[in-house]
């Protein structure tokens, strides 16, 4: 108390570091070639597409990629750009819209190394990583599947030191960097998920560096007034990238829905000329603002919120 008083009385209250960066700056600063990357969101919702597009612009190679657990356009686009060496695969697909064409092509040709897993793997390895457990044993059941035999690197067997039974174990994973979408954050990185939280907070806790892509930067006072709703405290966050409509063509929960027409265009382009797609929508526009112009402007967001917020 005495120390705090002294600091205040001498007028030495220091300004906090603001973490708002452009996508370009954040990717340059926190993503190194060959890094281990975790990407948040689920299916075609809350994918950090503005960051993904920037990774492709900067041509940053990804040594290992993990999705949380259901990857969609985010993983498929990085794979299609030839940037991913290895993928922890619980699911990559477009749900009712079909399979993920680049993922299929690269996995079938052997260009992508698939580390076979499931959603429990993603959850438990990140849970172990988040609390620095050396490894984590799994509940029984997995041994009846083909998954562990397809990925002997990541599944090991030991005996339960209490009961003696054979149990499967997973390593603790601590990705170098997590790319996660939150709808709101202040300039320091205190953030709120306005919809589903998915596995994204677990991913944030497990990862060394965290880049948050947000729909809007809110005043710090908003965070103080809503502390009970804050999901991510600022000290875990390294960069806040303010890119309204940055999840397009996927959804940002309660802000806009996924763009089915664009995802279908993407799926078609994967089968024909994926490079042309990347040139038009990814490498051509220099940032998300220019990307929005290419897809028809912010009016598009209004179209994608037809029916409004669900309550």
């Amino acid at each position, binding site marked *: 108390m005495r120390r705090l008083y002294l600091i205040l009385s001498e007028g030495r209250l220091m300004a906090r570091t603001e973490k708002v960066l452009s996508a370009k700056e954040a990717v340059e600063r926190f993503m190194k070639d060959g890094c281990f990357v975790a990407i948040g969101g*689920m*299916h*075609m*919702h809350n994918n950090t597409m503005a960051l993904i597009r920037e990774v492709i612009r900067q041509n940053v190679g990804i040594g290992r990629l993990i999705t*949380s*657990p*259901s990857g969609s356009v985010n993983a498929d686009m990085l794979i299609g750009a030839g940037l991913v060496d290895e993928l922890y*695969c*619980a*699911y*990559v*697909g477009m*749900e*009712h819209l079909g*399979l*993920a064409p680049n*993922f*299929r092509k690269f*996995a*079938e040709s052997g260009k992508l190394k*698939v580390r*076979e*897993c*499931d*959603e*429990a793997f993603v*959850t*438990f390895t990140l*849970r172990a990583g988040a609390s620095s457990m050396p490894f984590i044993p799994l*509940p*029984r*059941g*997995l*041994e*009846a*599947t*083909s*998954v562990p*035999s*397809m990925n002997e690197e990541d599944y090991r067997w030991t005996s339960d030191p209490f009961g003696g039974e054979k149990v499967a174990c997973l390593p603790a994973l601590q990705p170098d960097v997590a790319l996660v979408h939150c709808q709101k954050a202040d300039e320091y990185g205190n953030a709120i998920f306005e*919809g*589903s*939280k*998915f*596995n994204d*907070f*677990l991913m944030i806790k497990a990862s060394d560096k965290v880049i948050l892509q947000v729909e809007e930067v809110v005043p710090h006072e908003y965070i103080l007034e809503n502390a009970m709703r804050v999901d991510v405290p600022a000290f875990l966050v390294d960069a806040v990238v303010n890119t309204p409509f940055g999840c397009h063509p996927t*959804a940002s*929960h*309660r802000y806009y*829905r*996924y763009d089915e027409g664009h995802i279908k265009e993407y799926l078609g382009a994967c089968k024909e000329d994926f490079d042309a797609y990347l040139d038009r929508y990814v490498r051509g526009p220099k940032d998300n603002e220019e990307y929005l112009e290419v897809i028809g402007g912010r009016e598009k967001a209004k179209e994608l919120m037809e*029916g409004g*917020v*669900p*309550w």
Partner: protein
Amino acid sequence: MVEVKTAELMASVLSKHLEDGDVAIMGAFSAIPMLASRLAQMTHAPNLTYIAGGSGAVNPLLEPLVASSCDDRLLKAEAVLPLSDVIDFEARTEIDIFFAGGLQIDKRGNCNLLGIGKPGEIKFRGPGSVGLPFLSRARRFAIYSMNHSTRTFVEKVDFISGPGFVDGKDFPGGGPSLVVTPICVMDFDEERMQLKSVHPGVSVDDVVQNTGFELRIPDDVPQTGLPTEEELELMREIDPLGVARNSL
């Protein structure tokens, strides 16, 4: 009476398989199981709990039913949980009924979402095993398939994503209990898939021709019971956009 669409017939069959007090869970691409669950709550299982996959939504009201299992419209619900909590329920054997599917399904109820081929030589890469490995920890599971062909219903799956009945393994789960396809309903006898009923306009021989293994056929195979008019009306209320209805 209005025409019954095949997807509605499948949803009504799955709905009847749900019991009051069950906790049900479904994953990606689950418009039909979601429709079935909401219908069950409205007709005979008011205490059914259902969890809409990755969205983490518990008992979504489906106003209206939507196609994606993670859509924000599902968050109009009783609770919305982080996915890691949902995985805990699956691991803890809190789930009474899991809805499953596969690129391949075999006579013992094993499901494959991993791919077609052999280890190291996958010719057709599937999306991945997602939640299916925990089928072995659900009290029972129902398989629904959007097609019924010899390519889907095979003697033995190339890879096991979700285990059906497994020899010599003592898992907490009870195994597969029902299979619903666009042409028939099947269940299990002595841990082998057997025909239970055929949908209107389908013969037993049609099912046999489209199944890649020797299906057990009981002496008496009835026609699948149609949804009542009340059930149909409720389904059209839940699914005004035809998301499930027109998915086949």
